[in-house]
């Protein structure tokens, strides 16, 4: 029992820490690519420099992402050996393919970083970035497929504890896969966009009024808007997937206790002795989310024995995720329309502070989303096949390891922030633009 609990805590800790860097690792290459592309197309040095400076910061986050990714990769076997023994037989293929995607990314990232200005034709250098971005995104795709499999396992038969008729491709293309992959990859782009927007807005607030930051803000919020729309749309489809294949997860997240038609959606509220209080009730909305029709019947928690349903606090996680997602969608939309309609307030200090706030918020939303996904699958590690408790290690050393890893993540977290700050504070963009101007003979403003 103890080792199960501590294994869960350690896995949660590693994943919560890793996902920050992993998400940046998936999203930022796309942002670098866009900036460099715009820079080449418009022949605008500012965008090229944007790509270059993002790439520099990106290396630090990638390093932490790689080592924590290695940690979680090994911890899966160290903490959940029984699960991995079973899962290895059925879902090893995407895990294996992920290492190739990662390999590909690593090689081209090395080349990309060390070939700035090496080519006469800048487009050649840009081309090197495509495998980096593809490798990063496909890593996310493959790993998310494994996670989808845990939610909707298929592609094998379990007869008297023996695995037969294994089909790795059927296991990969499980029903949870399309929405999960789309949501994870889309929100990685969204998260990275709002992170970089927050940095640009912060620089503008802290005295720099350089057009460089304004261009960065404009680009990142545009991308942020597009991918928050995608996140919302895919989120809706995820609701339909859950209603069909994991109704207990949806019901727990929405506090939907009784199976009924015309189901309303509960937002916010608190649970008091099994009674929902202070919630905002949106009529028919849950039926629409679950089945696309206001009248449809939505399965409630009453259809499941209590030991097979996830804890009800995941509703709060759902609220946090959706609220932040929608807020950021609105914020970027207002900014976009405001820039176009020349509304003065989008360039005001308070609005920029809101954008800065979007940086931490988008990561809170990311964490809430992953906790919702993982806690919402409980009590299963492999839905309806293996309970989380059955998958865990029998080793008694997990608490000690938990303490060690907590310390490690603290050191890495602080270290990466200190180094990133130091990098950019010592070499502010104004300075770099001047340096490059002197190099090139003055054709950049």
């Amino acid at each position, binding site marked *: 029992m103890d080792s199960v609990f501590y294994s869960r805590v350690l896995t949660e800790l590693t994943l919560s820490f890793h996902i920050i860097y992993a998400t940046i690792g998936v999203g930022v290459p796309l942002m670098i690519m866009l900036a460099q592309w715009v820079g080449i197309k418009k022949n605008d040095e500012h965008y090229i420099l944007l790509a*270059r400076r993002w790439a*520099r910061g990106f*290396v*630090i986050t*990638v*390093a*932490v992402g*790689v*080592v*924590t990714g*290695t*940690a979680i*990769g*090994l911890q899966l*076997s*160290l*903490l*959940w*050996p029984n699960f*991995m*023994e*079973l899962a*290895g*037989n059925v879902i*090893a*293929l995407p895990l*294996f393919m992920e*290492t*190739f995607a*990662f*390999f*590909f990314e*690593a*090689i081209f990232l*090395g*080349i990309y*970083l*060390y*070939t*700035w*200005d*090496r080519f006469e034709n800048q487009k050649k250098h840009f081309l090197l970035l495509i*495998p980096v971005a593809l490798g990063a995104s496909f890593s996310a795709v493959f790993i998310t497929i494994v996670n989808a499999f845990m939610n909707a396992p298929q592609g094998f038969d379990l007869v008297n504890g023996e695995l037969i008729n*294994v089909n*790795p491709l059927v296991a990969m293309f499980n029903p949870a896969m399309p929405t999960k992959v789309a949501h994870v990859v889309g929100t990685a782009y969204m998260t990275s966009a709002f992170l970089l927007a927050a940095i640009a807005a912060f620089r503008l607030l802290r005295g720099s009024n350089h057009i460089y930051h304004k261009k960065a803000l404009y680009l990142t919020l545009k991308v942020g808007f597009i991918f928050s729309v995608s996140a919302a749309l895919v989120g809706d489809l995820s609701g339909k997937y859950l209603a069909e294949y994991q109704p207990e997860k949806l019901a727990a997240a929405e506090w939907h206790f009784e199976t009924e038609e015309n189901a309303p959606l509960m937002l916010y509220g608190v649970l008091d002795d099994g009674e929902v209080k202070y919630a905002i009730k949106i009529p028919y909305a849950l039926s629409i989310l679950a089945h696309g029709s206001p009248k449809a019947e939505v399965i409630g928690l009453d259809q499941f024995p209590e030991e097979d349903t996830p804890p009800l606090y995941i509703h709060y996680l759902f609220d946090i995720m959706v609220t932040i997602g929608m807020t950021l969608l609105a914020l970027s939309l207002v900014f976009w329309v405001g820039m176009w309609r020349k509304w003065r307030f989008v360039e005001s200090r308070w609005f920029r502070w809101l954008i800065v706030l979007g940086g931490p918020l988008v990561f809170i939303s990311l964490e809430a989303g992953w906790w919702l996904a993982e806690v919402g699958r409980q009590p299963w590690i492999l839905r309806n096949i293996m309970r989380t408790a059955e998958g865990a*290690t*029998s080793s008694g*050393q*997990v608490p*000690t*390891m938990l303490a*060690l*890893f907590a310390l*490690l993540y603290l050191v*890495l977290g602080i*270290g990466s922030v200190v*180094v*990133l700050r*130091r*990098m950019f504070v010592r070499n502010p963009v104004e300075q770099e633009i001047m340096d490059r101007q002197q190099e090139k003979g003055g054709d950049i403003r």
Partner: protein
Amino acid sequence: MNIEILGITVLWVFLFGYIMVGAIDFGAGFFNAYTLLTGRQRILTHVIQRYLSPVWEVTNVFLVFFFVGIIGFFPKTAFYYGTTLLVPVSFGIILLAVRGSYYAFETYGARGHKGYSFVYGAAGLLLPASLSIVLTISEGGFIEMIDGQPVLDYWLLFTSPLTWSIVVLSLAATLYISATFLTWYANKAKDQEATQLLRKYALIWALPTMIAAGGIIFELRKHNSLHYENIQRFWPLFLLSFIMFLGTLGLLWKGRRYGVAFGLLAGQFVFAFFGYGASHYPYLLYPYLTIYDSFTNHAMAIALITAFIFGLLMLIPSLYLLLRLFLFNKDYVKGKEDYHA
């Protein structure tokens, strides 16, 4: 060749790849820190950073490939090794995390930061020692089945001379491989001072490597006689390996043909590593696990091998490009160009 042997051969090749590129990498980090400490960084830092910079992340992938692959091809290893290796491998992960991130912190964020350099130099040196424990455990005798669960006996493990022979070998070999490679690399960069210093390091670590390797075979005789007998069946491989070792040593001593010297060193380790691997056959973990009773189902095996072939088709040209641009590019090696972002 059956599919089980094909699977383990692929994994063994990648593990060998990790051991070689990892040794170069970790040794380089250590020499970098060591020369910082002794005030000779002027001589080495430049050469070492030239080599390390573009490849560090690739090194790590070799390891990931190996452990993901072994769970894929031999899922039962997750149960035996996963359960028993929690502590040793966790230490390995922590060292690896410190090593990787502090390397990046120093290289990209705080060039020349002494603290960071020491941290990653030390972590890199401890890493092979910590990971080599897995090989020791695979020899059997340290794991007991209690209530159907494998349990590692730490006392036995850490008092066994076999454990410490393997630890010494991993350390000595890391420094030996790294110094020999960097001698060649520095020579290519026409950096005489660095070449001579690294050559000296290579010569220093050659003998301990060989003594530790001999010690392991000696210890195995007591510890795992089945494996010891199997090793003897492969004596031609080990003999070839030893001859190549003498070749490397001779060339280093005379101070010429460093490229050939490193080639012979690679050959020495290929023969020793594959001789060791082949004599370990069919066991993955004495006496509980062989490659046959732990192998995955047929459908997964075919899928993994297909994915592997397609993956290689993408990887080989990419790796070639990486080597051509950095390792085998004269201007880059000599440090004439610096195009870092």
